[in-house]
């Protein structure tokens, strides 16, 4: 399998994107931004469709659209962007725009299908460098901002009270998320970006209470999903995205099952026996 250049590229790019998505996914779950992640993937799709229409690099179009959406949505404030209705309005507008650019673009149906479903095995060496660069950049920012981002994600009221710049953290995180979505979209496609952004992290939340271990488990689960997906796809010819989604789902249900079993096994606290005499 590794004798082929395209498989080497796929494993390298897939690993970088999986680690990045696994780590950022922990904060997506903690901040309750799963729906926004889904919206960004469609914004990215519209951006890529626009780029193909303009004969640009699709990644440039995706980054332009998703980062603009991140700054605009972040500027509205957490009270607005955590609500479903304004986000679903944005989602429908960008999906409409994506379809418009799709209809205006002629003879590019393969490129557009790749954006919707992903094309990990079609990645060349220059794209691998591009993805590695972006993933490393995002991970460095996440490492440097780890303490503030973790506090604000898990305890927003406490973070605001402690004087943290919570609005800045919110916008900065949405920007990182939008860039990650644009990158992951090339691997798993707009329809399955959700898979790498939320499922490994959700599985990790079931396994541990420690934030550092959540980050580690989530990254490992994402990498397992991508590696298994690539290997199974190579030998069966079925889409990579399907296998990635299937492996992540199996991991998630296994972790949830283990969590439920463990909670049942925990000793329950017996109430103290109190007798009350009613005799006078």
């Amino acid at each position, binding site marked *: 399998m590794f004798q082929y250049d395209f498989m080497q590229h796929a494993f390298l790019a897939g690993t970088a994107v999986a680690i990045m998505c696994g780590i950022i996914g922990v904060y997506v779950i903690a901040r309750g931004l799963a729906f926004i992640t889904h919206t960004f993937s469609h914004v990215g799709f519209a951006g890529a469709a626009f780029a193909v229409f303009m004969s640009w690099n699709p990644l440039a179009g995706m980054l332009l659209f998703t980062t603009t959406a991140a700054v605009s949505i972040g500027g509205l404030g957490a009270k607005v962007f955590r609500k479903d209705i304004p986000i679903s309005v944005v989602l429908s507008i960008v999906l409409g725009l994506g379809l418009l650019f799709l209809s205006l673009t002629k003879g590019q149906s393969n490129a557009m299908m790749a954006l919707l479903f992903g094309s990990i095995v079609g990645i060349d060496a220059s794209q691998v460098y591009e993805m590695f660069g972006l993933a490393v950049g995002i991970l460095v920012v996440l490492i*440097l901002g780890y*303490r503030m981002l973790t506090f604000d994600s898990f305890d927003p*009221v*406490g973070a605001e*009270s402690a004087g943290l710049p919570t609005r800045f953290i919110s916008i900065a995180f949405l920007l990182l998320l939008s860039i990650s979505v644009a990158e992951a979209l090339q691997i798993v496609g707009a329809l399955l970006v959700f898979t790498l952004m939320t499922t490994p992290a959700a599985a990790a939340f079931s396994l*541990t*209470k*420690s934030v550092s271990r959540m980050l580690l488990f989530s990254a490992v689960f994402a990498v397992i999903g991508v590696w298994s997906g690539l290997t199974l796809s190579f030998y069966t010819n079925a889409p990579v995205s399907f296998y990635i989604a299937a492996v992540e789902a199996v991991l998630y249900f296994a972790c949830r099952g283990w969590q439920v079993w463990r909670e049942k096994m925990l000793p329950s606290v017996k109430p103290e026996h109190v007798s009350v005499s009613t005799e006078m």
Partner: protein
Amino acid sequence: MESALSVEHVSVSLGGEWILHDISFEVRRGEMVSIIGPNGAGKSTLMKVLLGVLQPSRGRITVHLPPAAKNRSRSIGYVPQSRQMDVDTSLRAWDFVSFGLPHTLRPWLNRKERSRVREALELTRCEELANQAISRLSGGQRQRLYLAQALVRNPDLLLLDEPTSNLDPGGQEMVVELVNQIRQERGTTVLLVTHDMHIAAKYSDRILYLTRGRYAIGRVEDIVRPDVLTTLYGAPMTGIHEETHTTAVPSRTSSMPYLEV
């Protein structure tokens, strides 16, 4: 005694309405002052102004930092009235307390920081909870953890906004008793917002009684008096002092029955 906090002619207007009006008081180092008053009196607003997250419309607040203190935000510990946390999140108590440490670009905790987290957990009697998920803790245990997070940066001034509001009477007494012990051991200045006059009377050096637009500060026996309460509420009021209970109630009027005690 040295002053820890000066509030000078502070007024706060929100949405065109004066929530606090021309309030001045001073808190001495190591003193415990309870802030009491009816709902909507501006107690939480005062806390936010003291914390610096809300700017007063008029007046000045000065937090007198001891020479060793690095900056204002590191010298104030705060326990908010409510916490917006997902109850299903299995976050361990150790991580939650460590969030309160001063923030650096270094993602891991060094030896000194780990010992500060341990110390804060010990101080609030939460050592055995360190590896427990917050979602599995009782209300009283969570409240002690919130206190531990506020204490982990070793603050000189502790602001507690109704830290006992969701607890049963036994739990309320235990949390405030713990705060009082920490104050005595560390010399921390404490401002405590509470609805419980009994707790305020038992543990505080002074109380700040806030009503909409009016306030009084002094020892509990000086504030919970018919003349002061009547001025504060703008209606006939009296104070009831019992062995275990102190409260402000409306005075006898023709339409309102009055229970002699």
